[in-house]
């Protein structure tokens, strides 16, 4: 079975259409959560800092304009992972409220689980993305 990265709020559903993405944008804007677009070709689950497609759109209240940015990012990075984040800046939360993948590379070879066998039957585990064997920018290209 082909590898399928399951990070993000919606990874077990069919890819959201642009109309469906827009409804999620509406939901975020109704809560006053600014949206941002990020992309990466390093899908390691501990890769927290995906590249920012511009700054978070703090003042953008038009869902169509946010969808436009997603599509511009898709044009520039068709073979990258792209995610849409909604951020809740309210006191006591100050973290992401919603974050889901809106673009996937055509083919992700997945992860190698590296096992370092040490004393007393212990194993030290390391996840390694096969894609990152190639230099940045050349990953996921077929």
């Amino acid at each position, binding site marked *: 079975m082909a590898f399928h990265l399951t990070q993000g709020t919606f990874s077990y559903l069919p890819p959201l259409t642009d109309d469906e993405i827009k*409804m*999620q944008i*509406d939901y975020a804007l109704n809560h006053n959560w600014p949206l941002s677009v990020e992309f990466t070709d390093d899908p390691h689950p501990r890769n927290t800092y995906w590249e920012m497609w511009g700054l978070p759109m703090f003042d953008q209240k038009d869902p169509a304009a946010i969808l436009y940015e997603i599509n511009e990012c898709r044009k520039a990075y068709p073979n990258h992972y792209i995610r849409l984040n909604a951020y809740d800046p309210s006191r006591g939360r100050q*973290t992401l409220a919603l*974050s889901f993948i809106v673009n996937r590379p055509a083919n992700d070879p997945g992860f190698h689980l590296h096992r370092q066998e040490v004393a007393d039957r212990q194993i030290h585990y390391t996840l390694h993305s096969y894609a990152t064997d190639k230099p940045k920018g050349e990953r996921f290209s077929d």
Partner: protein
Amino acid sequence: MSATEENKTKGRWASGVIPYREMGYWRPDYEPLETDIICLFRIIPQEGVEPEEAAAAVAGESSTATWTVVWTDRLTSYDDYRAKAYRVDPIPGTNQYFAYIAYSIDLFEEGSVTNVAASVIGNVFGFKALKALRLEDMRFPLHYVKTFQGPAHGIVVEREYLDKYGRPLLGATTKPKLGLSARNYGRVAYEALRGGLDFTKDDENIGSQPFMRWRDRFLYVMEGVNRAMAETGEVKGHYLNVTAATMEDMYERAEFARDLGSVIIMVDLVVGYTGIQSMAKWARKNGMILHLHRAGHSTYTRQKTHGVSFRVISKWMRLIGVDHIHAGTVVGKLEGDPNMIHGFYKTLRDSKVEANLQEGLFFDQDWGSMPGVMPVASGGIHAGQMHLLLHHLGEDVVLQFGGGTIGHPMGISAGATANRVALEAMIKARNEGKDILNEGPEILQKAARLSPSLQAALDVWKDVSFNYESTDTPDVIPTPSV
């Protein structure tokens, strides 16, 4: 007559026995200070005992008093140190009373739930003058809250650590609870995690038994966890139960879990307040999420007339510093009136909780900047209830489907996928503005068209529900408006 005046009268200090209410523990004129800790007790006095005297006795025995007058009281600033029963309300239609008792903040050691418990539930519950006693709620002033570490990480840090946002987390407890060998046990964790769950879990009674020693379990489970992470590219965890006979054993197991790279450990409530708080400190120091299984709580939380409400246990556990706590499902197999559970969830998660009698919340409670505890819903729940779970419990919760994952007809991994598909479909629908409470079943059926796993889950568990009357219910019900 104020207590001070009363104490001036000669008789107060004569040797012998006088009623507690005349010793200064009944003070209907008292206005609680902002810094006071307040307890609300449900009391049933013995026949012939006035409710005010019963309340005063509880105040006395949980603070400075003994059964007789002692002259050594006069060496202290006794009026400050006495707890004060200041209000007693009859509960209509019963022989019960609500007694409000205020305690000076200086009666309690800073940062010690154990010390609080030793006072407020230490002696009084066996007191002969009472037929029954229940600690219903406590108000902790922010001054006292601030003396605690609080949750080792809290909801926000946990979400960032796990990289999971916008939806409840999903878990499953390994079944059968007892008897699997370590190798087979790790298989269950692997299958459930790779299928789409975020967490798997040891059950409360998994320690280090002959059929599976703790060290073997940890090794095989972590193989399963890491394999599942490689299959999905997502952070996964298994609550490794470090509950053991001594603190030394618990630290040894926790350290081993940390060295193997686990993100989370668990303890059982039966290890006691001090044991849990020690583990909470350890968990913050070692970057480990701390899950608490409330094993044993129903022995004292369930019956309405005697014991300690789970609302109080929730407050204590937030102060003590756990990151997760089982707090009820509303719809599952275990006790839980919906209103009461809403009250527990607010108590665990919110920064400021307002009094709400219908939800059993008797006091405003300000938690300041103390992080929230992630409630865990576990016990007899399945994918077909996803809309109800999301409606009642909200987003910051771990939904644990043990049987509802492992009992799936197509296997554990399919069971996990069914739950994840159901959850994501429900979140998506809710965000799109759909009325999930009413349209939930159709939303699930629609999602199942693209997910054979979900379809099988809906088919097999479609009629399962646990509709029994709750025992722990609110005393206040809304008056129906016409």
